[in-house]
């Protein structure tokens, strides 16, 4: 059975609570600030929000429902999306269905995490049962070690070089210099990238995201409602999610996008070549290469050549992660999964200021998350049009 389309769904009011490296506040503080910024930007009272979707790692022991009492809201539709880097796409997809079905009029999708001085270690140690039993006791390197395996394998099999990964990191830093909330404020040269200290070989310092505290959010509502409110919006053209795909591959070199991308592009009535920009999930550059392949911008194993062919700055030949991505902005836990979505909305609603991609009409946002054991399990993608 073909799934129904996403006609009539608007995505609007991108909000970012500026990141800090460490915060003494709880996740609730960051989510509350995000929620109130959304209301302020949309000119709404909180009672107008009747749907709430929450993503966070550090909200524990609370989940979304505890947050309703904390924030004093009474939604008639509530979702908790603990899917890390896949959170934004999945939250949007579910919220879109709620709006289409009339279960909610306006859904606020918020993601936020705090970062105390020792909280990242604790998150890693208890990330999942498989991680606790079969990964963390092996050097406690966290995702650095997992992505080092994938990066080393990718380099060996497909001939990628450190320069290829470095090119993405350097271009994203250039983008970040035009995005004031980014935690990294200095330009990055390829020489600096290559000579950085090793973290988990072949990964070096600038291949790894920096954990931080922050929050991101947006609204999902009908196009009519968005127009009535007078907020700028993008329309949802298509979206997919897929979990634990290709489970029998001995090592992850592809994820669920490769299964569902045809359907994604069919929903949107557009192809990869039509995209004006792409926001990939970029906790490590190898993941961006995997997404470019699985989403059909090039064939499997061809991403190194693709990278060598393009520049990736906002004004370059293939605008990618135009606010700098997590590699240059910081990774605020689950909010890191929202970074690309919020930036896509800014690009499509003309709010991207100096990094505005010229004539951006159509953009693709991709999400990837949850290294449960040896690979990322969740993935999703969405195409938005203005």
């Amino acid at each position, binding site marked *: 059975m073909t799934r129904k389309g996403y006609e009539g769904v608007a995505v609007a009011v991108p909000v970012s609570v500026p990141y800090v490296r460490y915060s003494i506040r709880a996740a609730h503080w960051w989510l509350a600030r995000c929620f109130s910024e959304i209301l302020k930007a949309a000119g709404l009272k909180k009672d107008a929000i009747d749907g709430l979707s929450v993503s966070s790692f550090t909200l524990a022991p609370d989940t979304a429902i505890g947050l309703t009492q904390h924030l004093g809201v009474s939604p008639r539709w509530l979702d908790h999306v603990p899917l890390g880097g896949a959170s934004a796409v999945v939250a949007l997809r579910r919220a879109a269905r709620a709006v289409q079905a009339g279960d909610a009029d306006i859904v606020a999708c918020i993601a936020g995490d705090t970062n105390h001085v020792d909280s*990242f*270690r604790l998150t*890693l*140690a*208890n990330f999942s*049962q*498989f991680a*606790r*039993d*079969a*990964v*963390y*006791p*092996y*050097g*406690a*390197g*966290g995702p*650095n*070690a997992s992505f*080092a*395996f*994938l990066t*080393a*394998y990718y380099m*060996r099999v497909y001939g990628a070089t450190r320069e290829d990964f470095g090119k993405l990191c350097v271009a994203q830093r250039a983008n970040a210099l035009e995005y004031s909330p980014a935690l990294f404020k200095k330009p990055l040269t390829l020489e600096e990238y290559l000579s950085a*200290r*090793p*973290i*988990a*070989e*072949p*990964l070096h310092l600038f291949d790894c995201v920096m954990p931080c505290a922050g929050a991101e959010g947006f609204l999902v509502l009908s196009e009519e409602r968005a127009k009535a409110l007078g907020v700028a919006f993008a329309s949802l053209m298509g979206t997919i999610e897929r979990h634990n795909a290709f*489970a029998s591959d*001995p*090592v992850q070199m592809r994820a669920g996008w490769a299964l569902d991308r045809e359907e994604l592009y069919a929903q949107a009535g557009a192809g990869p070549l039509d995209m004006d920009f792409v926001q990939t999930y970029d906790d490590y550059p190898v993941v961006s290469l995997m997404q470019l392949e699985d989403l059909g911008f090039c064939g499997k194993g061809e991403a190194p050549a693709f990278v060598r062919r393009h520049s990736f700055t906002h004004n370059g030949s293939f605008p990618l992660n135009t606010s700098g991505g997590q590699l240059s902005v910081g990774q605020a836990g689950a909010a890191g999964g929202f970074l690309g979505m919020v930036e896509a909305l800014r690009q499509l609603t003309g709010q991207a200021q100096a990094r505005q991609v010229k004539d951006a009409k159509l953009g693709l946002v991709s999400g990837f998350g949850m290294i449960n*054991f*040896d690979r990322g399990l969740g993935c999703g993608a969405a195409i938005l049009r203005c």
Partner: protein
Amino acid sequence: MLEKPRRKNPVLRTRLPTLPPAARSRVALGLTAAAALGRFELQQCRDCAMVQYPPREACQQCLSVHLPWSPQSGEGELLSSTVLHHSNDLFFRERLPWRLGLVHLDCGPTVVAHLHGAVPPAPARVRVAARLDRAGQAVLVALPEKETSNMADDRQLREFTCDPRLRKVLVTDGKTAVGQALVQALAAAGAELIWVGYAEPWKKFPGFDELNRISQATLLPLDVTDSKNVRELAAEIGGKVDILVNNAEYHRAFGIGNRSGVETARAEMDVNYFGLLRLAQEFGPAMRLRGADGLASAVAWVNVLSIYALANFPPHGTFSASKAAAHSLAQCLRAEMRPAGVRVVNVFPGPIDDEWNQLVPPPKVAAAALANAIVGALRDGIEDVYPGDVAQEWLARWRDNPKALERELS
């Protein structure tokens, strides 16, 4: 190849022991239970035969919940490797850089494993084994496909083993054949220094001269029933002992009805149970402090128990009881030594081929075979050792049905 460590400056601080992450789900402890015996087992579905990893509650293929632990060869291909230069955990932070590998096992699953230094870059054939780490939990280690020279000297592998090489060992009783075989085996394994205890030092015992001819061995008066003697010896050498092998034993035949009075049973308890307690109280604290003391840190405490500790052997009834008591105490010692990463190795031999087992039919364990099994266990990081055919058979019968074994023995 490891070099003998330089003498330590006693004024400098001794690094305190830390442990690798120890938390595991209950189902994952199946890996530890097998590794404690030196086995590599993974869950294998009883219904569809699929081998599973990481440990889980249901088969990922057919959803069966019957996933018994089954022996696996561990052979596989190294897909990729990394060298950590950063860790979020204190134990590894103190031991960086640290090498890890991603291995596709021939039996199906892909695993993350500690990677031996002699394994070449991927792709490479490897042999994955389970080893107990300093926290006493099983971890996977990818070894070179074939033995290489000085393989046991690998810096990472040595964190999982208790190799006697370059270490200082105390053997508590040098008067028995087992004690003398232990000294020979430990010397052959490259122990740096072997202190050998002997009670009643005014008596010259058979084998005395042979022991004195072993260059690493030093004989010291030690009577484990003498609290003062144990305390004074611990004060003298306790801060230097890396491996303590308690083989002191008092063994008489007879059960309950064939002997009147409690003197013999009390003597068995005094050596076999209270002897262990005295040693543990005097030597334990110093060894606990030296769990991370460089290349030759305190690593292991070996108790020579008896297979009769599992189930009473009525013809040797009071001896069995004293060994059962010692086994229980050794479990307590294991818990108390664990925070220091010092492994308590319990050895459960079948009847040893000595005069006190004269009437026990063969097969019996030769002293040299027992000694080699103990050194082998230290090298391979094994925690529970059942040397000899009788011990293996008793263990199998006991695991299968302890009540049936009790009936068979009576």
